[in-house]
């Protein structure tokens, strides 16, 4: 392998391996099966969101409203059940809300041609505001009797593997199949690589873009259900947190360029694993909060700096939409 072929993906994989081996050797209690499962479980929701974001970013878009899709429809499920509706009806209502939300995002971006960054920034605020003003009584929507059994989605385990990990794996498989095995997947890559070229060659780019945002919203909703059932409540205030940066981080760190057309599910998995390993190792070492931020920042900087040395940007490689 020549130096030139080492991209972001390989660099992050390298850092992950080094970190993992170092923790395994020097940190007692790290390299146990139980801890590995905990590590994965703790980043499963982040990973699922990363997959939703990847779908959009590969098609040269971005979805800032993902956290609203994570918080509001699942919050609606908990609220409706609390108000006495049945669980299936509530879930159907939440899925419908996520679907409409995705369609709105997609329509604004594909047909009204509003840039995705601004569209999703605004629609995310709208959905979160709608939830706060009209749907929820309190920020934290509590679990209620009618939900019993559903918590297995976030707290159960299958053959010893916690269900959030299985949920993550499931979404990985679905997204990988979609991207690599179907015509739609190929179209998404084509649109991301060169949107105008894609349209000229006859790819139905507008409907495909709508589909991307619908899928992202639905996956976001699913991630929210996993999150809610794992902590027995939906803290809808999560919309105000910095979680969306973590999601973008996972995607970009894994090597999916924001300019679109590159990367896949594997990149998201690597990005998620790196973040998970860092968090887990630092928690075991009981590193202070500010120390954790410092270490996180340094490792991310190292990854970005190595990348820009090995793959310098110039007029040829820079694309419109690069951030």
């Amino acid at each position, binding site marked *: 392998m020549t130096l030139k072929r080492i991209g972001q993906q390989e660099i992050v994989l390298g850092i992950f391996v080094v970190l993992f081996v170092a923790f395994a050797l020097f940190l007692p*209690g790290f390299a*146990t099966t*139980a*801890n590995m499962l*905990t*590590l994965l*479980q*703790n980043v499963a*929701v982040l990973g699922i969101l990363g997959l939703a974001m990847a779908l959009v970013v590969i098609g040269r878009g971005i979805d800032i409203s993902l956290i609203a899709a994570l918080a509001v429809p699942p919050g609606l499920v908990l609220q409706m059940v609390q108000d006495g509706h049945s669980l299936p009806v509530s879930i159907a209502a939440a899925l419908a809300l996520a679907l409409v939300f995705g369609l709105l995002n997609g329509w604004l971006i594909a047909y009204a041609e509003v840039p995705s960054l601004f569209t999703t920034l605004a629609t995310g605020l709208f959905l979160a505001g709608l939830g*706060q003003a009209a749907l*929820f*009584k*309190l*920020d*934290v929507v*509590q679990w*209620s009797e009618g939900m019993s059994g559903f918590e297995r989605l976030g*707290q159960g385990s299958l053959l010893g593997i*916690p269900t959030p990990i299985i949920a993550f794996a499931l979404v990985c498989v679905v997204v990988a199949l979609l991207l690599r095995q179907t015509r739609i997947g190929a179209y998404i890559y084509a649109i991301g690589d060169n949107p105008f070229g894609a349209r000229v060659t006859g790819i139905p780019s507008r409907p495909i873009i709508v589909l991307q945002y619908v899928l992202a919203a639905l996956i976001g909703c699913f991630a929210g259900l996993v*999150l809610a059932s*794992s*902590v*027995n*409540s939906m*803290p809808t*205030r*999560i919309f*105000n*947190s910095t979680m969306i940066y973590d999601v973008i981080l996972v995607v970009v760190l894994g090597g999916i360029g924001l300019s679109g057309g590159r990367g896949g599910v594997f990149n998201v998995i690597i990005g998620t694993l790196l973040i998970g390993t860092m*968090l*887990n190792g630092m*928690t*075991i070492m*009981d590193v202070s*909060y*500010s120390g954790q931020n410092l270490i996180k920042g340094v490792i991310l900087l190292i990854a970005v700096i190595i990348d820009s040395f090995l793959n310098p940007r110039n007029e040829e490689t820079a694309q419109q939409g690069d951030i």
Partner: protein
Amino acid sequence: MLNIGKRLATMVAGAGLVACAAAPALAQKGLDEPFQGAFKKALAGKTVGYLPVAMNFDLTEGWYAGVKKELEPYGMKVVVRDPNWSTSAGAQALTTLISEKPAAIIVHNPDVQTYARLMQRAEKQGIFIIQVNMGSVYRSAAFVGANWIEIGERDTEAVVKACQGKSNKIAIVQGALSAAASAYTLKGVENVLAKHPEIKVVSSQAADWDAAKAKAITQTVLKQHPDLCGIVGFWDGMDIGTAAAVKEAGLTGKVFVATSGGGERKGACELVKSGAFDLNVSYDVPTQAADMAAMIKWLLSSGAKAGEVKGSIYTTLIPITNENASSDTACWNLSDLKK
């Protein structure tokens, strides 16, 4: 002695006769209570501003409902300014509130510094400032709220007690590092731990008031230390996650989980009953609301000037355990308070 006793008896009987004769006359005329008119006048038509860090959560909704219920019957108006977790929006809202010249403003500080000067300015202009639950460096007419240090101490004492004869390993799940409430609670924890050198803190991490983060941290800690005997959490809304991690590890009842909160039924009593929390120290929100309303009534009717009087009402804490979690009085329902 006997003589005096007899005489006294006669006097009492005589007085009774006089009273019997006078009573019908009084009942016919009615007696004016000279102070209630002035009290009503001092309150009627006045406005109270209410500036929480955000609406839509049990504490701030409860305070609002409770204060409104107490003051509106006297013709007072309570206006809310909701900065939705933004400190700068809150400072702006406070500035506009001051220019509207309400009689009093209830302020829920996001930190100890930001609003301090604004509150001082308000009191100079004759507006009483009531600070709730989170005080600032400026002492105003009244502070009504929990003593965070005491909360930290009581939670830790309970955990230390539960750890007797066990591993003595405990974990601490803090709130956000920037929040003074979290730092004060931690001070309380330290106070108790200084007296108990046998207790070993295996993890002390900030979870940013976030249930998912609290769960992730607790899960990792429990995998490393399955013999952990107790956890001190800093807020029940976040410690739902802490408790979920304990439950998933199959350690409910073995790991003592102590936390604190506003005592709303679903967030506090229900979770204690289910075994998620072993202790939830509650700073009963309806009591705090009633205290604030009482302060406002007293201040407005006393004729005192803003800035002249300063005092505190620290809330009497209610420890919610399995023993009282089922009672009607340990917790409160938001829906009842809103009626």
